[in-house]
Every structure is written in structure tokens, then in C-alpha cells.
């Protein structure tokens, strides 16, 4: 299979969706001739024209609402937020409108809109361009929230999101855009709501999201040399949560760690911890649950401080080591 970068895989998915369905169009800030702030849309404007690759004014709230309205009127919009932080400007349309219209209207319509948003830290962009806000959106019934960690899933989850009759938010990790991996040339779908076991192990279940999947895999390799065998689950979808895969794994390994970049308190790992505590897997636990999340602080600018604010492979390894060896 040929390799593509995560960004190229998304671009290919966008192109294939637009080729397959004339209703599909993309909109966002600087996605036309500029090619997107992270280069994701590239030359799509040349291939599909400015009517289907639409540069919007810097109007996040209005842009989100336009996407909702177009979806209600029979088009299939994909809106790129330049940074996921800017979704805070569009919360009204995402949370009050897109998420609720189907339910409030008695199930008589749906809102097939896709929101794409680059998220995460590690680029030196400081507090307003580095957040991981995905848990906010995963809290809202009516939204589906996905976070691909590989190029193949970046394309596959995008295509599933476009097919989906309801609003889907895709959080793409900025540090993954250049990562390469095998990507099928065919428009293969990655199912929404299904986690992937990236590494089989018997001592501890590590549930991770986005770039934390890769850092957890790196930590798992370090620990393998010490005789600790980690199972790493790539959550992929935050809402709806694939509870079955996590429960089965925890029953096998008897330990759970959640690794995520969003602020630890009330984050996705908090939900997974509670879900396991409420499940049949609780009785299998041989150790307290461990959450490794972002610090309770905005993302700092200085590179050393920035690194320290979110889990890294070495801090993940340290946490898992203590968890498995029972020395808290």
C-alpha cells in the first residue's frame, strides 16, 4: 500500500467525497488558494472551483450557521475551523443548533454537517491556538466526536463523517499532519464509534486519543524492555464511546490508564474511568485507575513548559510503571 501523510489522507478523502457527491462542498478560512493554514485543502480549489472550496470571512459563528443551514437545505457542507480553539466563537451554532435540531424537531429532519478542527499543543502557538477541547463537545448529545490518530483513519473517519446524517466533529491533531502511514487508495470507511487495539498486552489497558496513542505506544516499548506488557487502545471516537472494547480489555489486563491531552479534570479519561467503575470490569481491577491528562493550566509558550503541560512518552511510562508495580 502507498503511504500518505495524515494531511494528504484528509485531502484525498475530501476530494473523493466531492467527486462522488455533488452536494458535498468545503468551506473555511483560507482554505482556497492559500490551501489551508495546515495545508490540508492544498490545491482542491483548482480541482473543484471556488464554488465548492469556499473561503469564508473570519466569521466562525456565521460560518458554522451557514453550514447548518446549507445542510438543512440539502447540501453536505464540511466546515474547517482554522484552529479548534476558534470553535469557542461558534459554540451557539454547534451546541444549540446543529446538535439539537433533529431532536427538537421531533426527528423529522437531520443536520448532515461535518466540522473539522486542528487541535492540540506542541507547535509553540501558546494558549489560544493549542487547546484540546474535544471533551466539551463530547458532552453534548446530538454531536458525534472523532479523533483520528493515523493517516488511514483520518481519511476513513472523514468519509464516515460525510456519510453520516448527523453532525460530526473531527479533531485532527496538528502534530500528526506530517505523519506518514499506509492509506488505501479506495474510499474505505473507518466506522464511527469503534476503537482500535493498537498493541496487545496483558498487564495494563492504556486508552489513548490522537497523538497520545503514539506516545503511549512509545511508552509501551520502553516498558516492554522492563517486562511490563501494555495493551494500547486508540479510542478514535469520543462520542459514541466504544465501551465494549475497553471493558473487554480491562477485564483481561485488570488495570486501566487513560492518556489524553485535554485538561485532566472532567476530561475524556474521567468519563472512561467512571464508565469502567460502573461496569462489570470494576470487579476485575487490581489497581486504582490512572488518568494522565493535560495540566490544569493554559498551554504555555516556552517549549519546555509546553512539553511539561501534557503527557509525554517518558511521563506516560513513569505513570504506567507505578501503576503496574503498585507503588503509588
Amino acid at each position: 500500500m502507498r503511504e500518505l501523510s495524515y494531511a494528504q489522507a484528509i485531502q484525498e478523502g475530501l476530494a473523493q467525497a466531492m467527486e462522488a457527491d455533488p452536494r458535498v462542498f468545503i468551506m473555511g478560512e483560507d482554505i482556497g488558494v492559500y490551501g489551508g493554514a495546515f495545508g490540508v485543502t492544498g490545491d482542491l480549489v483548482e480541482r473543484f472551483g471556488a464554488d465548492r472550496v469556499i473561503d469564508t470571512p473570519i466569521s466562525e459563528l456565521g460560518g458554522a450557521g451557514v453550514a447548518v443551514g446549507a445542510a438543512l437545505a440539502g447540501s453536505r457542507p464540511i466546515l474547517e475551523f482554522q484552529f479548534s480553539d476558534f470553535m469557542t466563537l461558534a459554540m451557539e451554532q454547534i451546541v444549540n443548533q446543529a446538535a439539537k435540531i433533529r431532536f427538537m424537531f421531533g426527528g423529522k429532519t437531520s443536520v448532515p454537517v461535518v466540522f473539522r478542527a486542528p487541535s492540540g499543543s506542541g507547535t509553540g502557538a501558546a494558549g489560544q491556538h493549542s487547546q484540546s477541547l474535544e471533551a466539551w463537545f463530547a458532552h453534548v448529545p446530538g454531536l458525534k466526536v472523532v479523533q483520528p490518530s493515523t493517516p488511514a483513519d483520518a481519511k476513513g473517519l472523514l468519509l464516515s463523517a460525510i456519510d453520516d446524517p448527523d453532525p460530526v466533529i473531527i479533531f485532527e491533531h496538528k502534530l500528526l499532519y506530517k505523519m506518514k502511514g499506509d492509506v488505501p487508495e479506495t474510499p474505505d470507511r473507518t466506522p464511527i464509534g469503534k476503537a482500535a487495539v493498537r498493541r496487545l498486552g496483558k498487564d495494563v489497558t492504556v486508552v489513548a486519543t490522537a497523538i497520545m496513542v503514539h506516545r503511549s505506544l512509545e511508552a509501551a516499548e520502553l516498558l516492554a524492555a522492563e517486562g511490563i506488557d501494555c495493551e494500547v487502545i486508540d479510542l478514535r471516537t469520543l462520542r459514541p464511546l466504544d465501551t465494549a472494547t475497553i471493558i473487554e480489555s480491562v477485564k483481561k489486563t485488570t488495570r486501566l490508564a487513560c492518556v489524553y491531552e485535554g485538561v485532566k479534570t472532567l476530561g475524556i479519561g474521567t468519563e472512561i474511568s467512571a464508565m469502567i467503575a460502573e461496569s462489570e470490569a470494576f470487579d476485575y481491577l487490581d489497581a486504582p485507575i490512572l488518568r494522565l491528562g493535560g495540566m490544569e493550566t493554559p498551554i504555555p509558550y516556552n517549549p519546555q513548559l509546553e512539553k511539561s503541560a501534557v503527557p509525554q512518552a517518558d511521563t506516560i511510562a513513569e505513570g504506567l510503571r507505578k501503576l503496574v508495580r503498585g507503588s503509588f
Partner: protein
Amino acid sequence: MAKVTGGAGKNVRPFYGKYSKDALREALRRMQIIRKFEEGAEDLYVRGLSYGTMHLSVGQEASAVGATMMLRNSDYITSTHRGHGHCIGKGAEAKYMFAEFLGKEEGYCRGRGGSMHIADMATGNLGANGIVGGGLPIATGAAMAIKQQKRDDVAVCFFGDGANNEGAFHESLNMAAVWKLPVIFVCENNQYGMSVSAERSTAVKDIATRAAAYNMPGVVVDGNSIADVAEAMDEAIARAKRGEGPSLVECKTYRTKGHSRSDRNRYRTKEEIEEWKLRDPIPAFASELLTHGILSEAEVAEVDVETTREIADAIVFAQNGTDPTHIDIASEVHTPLAGAAA
């Protein structure tokens, strides 16, 4: 269009020449239905027979009907929290609206939305909205879809004076103008955003002047005159269909009832309310129809009787409706996917 026969001379304004007798009678009928729907809703509330909140549009019937009477089902509207009139104007039936108001399965939203969220895709009603300004970008997006799909339709966006200070208003008007979208922004300026007057909240006297900032026509009309509203709408719709883009129509009007159930009217005077009641748009329209010989006294009276009966029947229909029995509401949040287990 059928020309008016009878008393319509050459000094009669275009509205009465453009629309057929049937269309004008239907407009009067819808205005009466709106008024009586609102009165019926208030009565149900006063008698303790309804549950949630409501926002009545008594006094604003001319803008609701004047801005919708020329629309087809394939045209769209977005509405507001004070949206009963817009829904009826766009073709909603009172009985399904009352059913929604009473939370019944027969309601437009099966009792899941209530008064503030009445929507009806079949008539192009993309929904009333509980968020001030919420419908502005949605109407803009619907107009974008119309343009993309090369359809001969328009989107009409109702909003109030309160919404004109929301960012969504400014973002939407700008985008609609930049992209020359077929959307008409209809501001029903009823003078108060809940309790704060437009004078105290808005830096310009006429909201229509804000259109200049977005390079689109902005006109002020007497919102209590259906002819004024409809003529402005006809011009705006023609412009939209020529591909020249959006317009802003400001209808100066007044709600003679309070903001919602909790309103004690402490922010305005009885005199002001009484003064506006004298400018009631329904008798004014009926009187013009009589003057121009379009309807007879008997025909106007017939509309009155007919609408009173329809509203009474609609309330009975709603009261006999089905209370939702489906308690697995979590399964209604998402659209069932093909091939998924039921």
C-alpha cells in the same frame, strides 16, 4: 397575476393589483388565524391547561403574513422565539401547532420542541429558534444551498430588533452580501428586546440603515401594513432572484402582549400599548379590502367566523392528542443508520 375587479382604480397601490382576490382573502384568513391562535394559546395558559412558555405576536400579524404570502413550499423561512405567526404565514396548520404547544405526538415536533421550536420541513419552515439571532446564519446557509443547487427559491429570515445587536446578525449579512445569496432579512422591530427598548440598545434609529454597512438595500416599512410589507418583500425577492443578493426589510411594529408569561409590563406605559392597539393591522387590512371592493362585508365576516371555528376545532384536536409514550428518548437523538440494529 389576476387583476382586481370592482373598486380598484388606478390610484390603488400595487399590492392590491398584484394579488388575486383569493390570495388576499387567504392573507386576511392567515392573519386572523395567527391572532386567534395567540389568543387561544394565552387562554390555555391562563386556565392552567398548557405547560411551557410562549411568546405571543399579537399586533405583528401583518409582517408575518406580508413577508410570507408570496412564498412557495420550496422557499425557506427561519423564525424566532416569537414565531407562531411566521409558521402560520408559511402554511403551518393551527391544529398541529396547538398539538405541539400542548406537547402532543401530533404536534409538528411530536412534543419535543414546544412553542419555541416549531418547524415543518414540508412547508420550508426551517424552524423557530430559542436563541436570539440563531436563525440568521441558518437562513444564510439555506440560501447558499439554494444557489449551489441552482434553484429558483429564496430564504426569508425573520429576526427582531433584539437580534440586530448579536454578532450573528453582522456576520450573516456580510456573508450573504459577499456571496450575493438569495436571502431576505426581515427585521420585525417591535421596539423592545424583552424589556429594553431599541432606542436604549441600538445605536441607530432605523435598523435598516445597517444594511448600508453590508452593501445591500435596506428599507423601513410600516410593519402594521401588510401591503407595505408585501411590496417591499416583492422587490427584495425579485432582486434576490435576479442574482443581485440579499436585502434588509425593517418592519416597524409592536407586540401588544408582554414578552412572555413572566412579563409585568414595567418598562412601557399603558398609553403606549393602547396607542398601538389603535393601529391593529387586521382591521386596517380588512378595511382596505372593503374600500377597494375586493371583499364584501359578508366575506370579511365569513373569514372571521371560519377562523374562529378553525381555532376552536384545533384546540380540541390538540387536547385530544396523544401524550408521548415513547420514553426511550435517547434513541431519538441521532438518525437511525441504514443497516444498524433497530
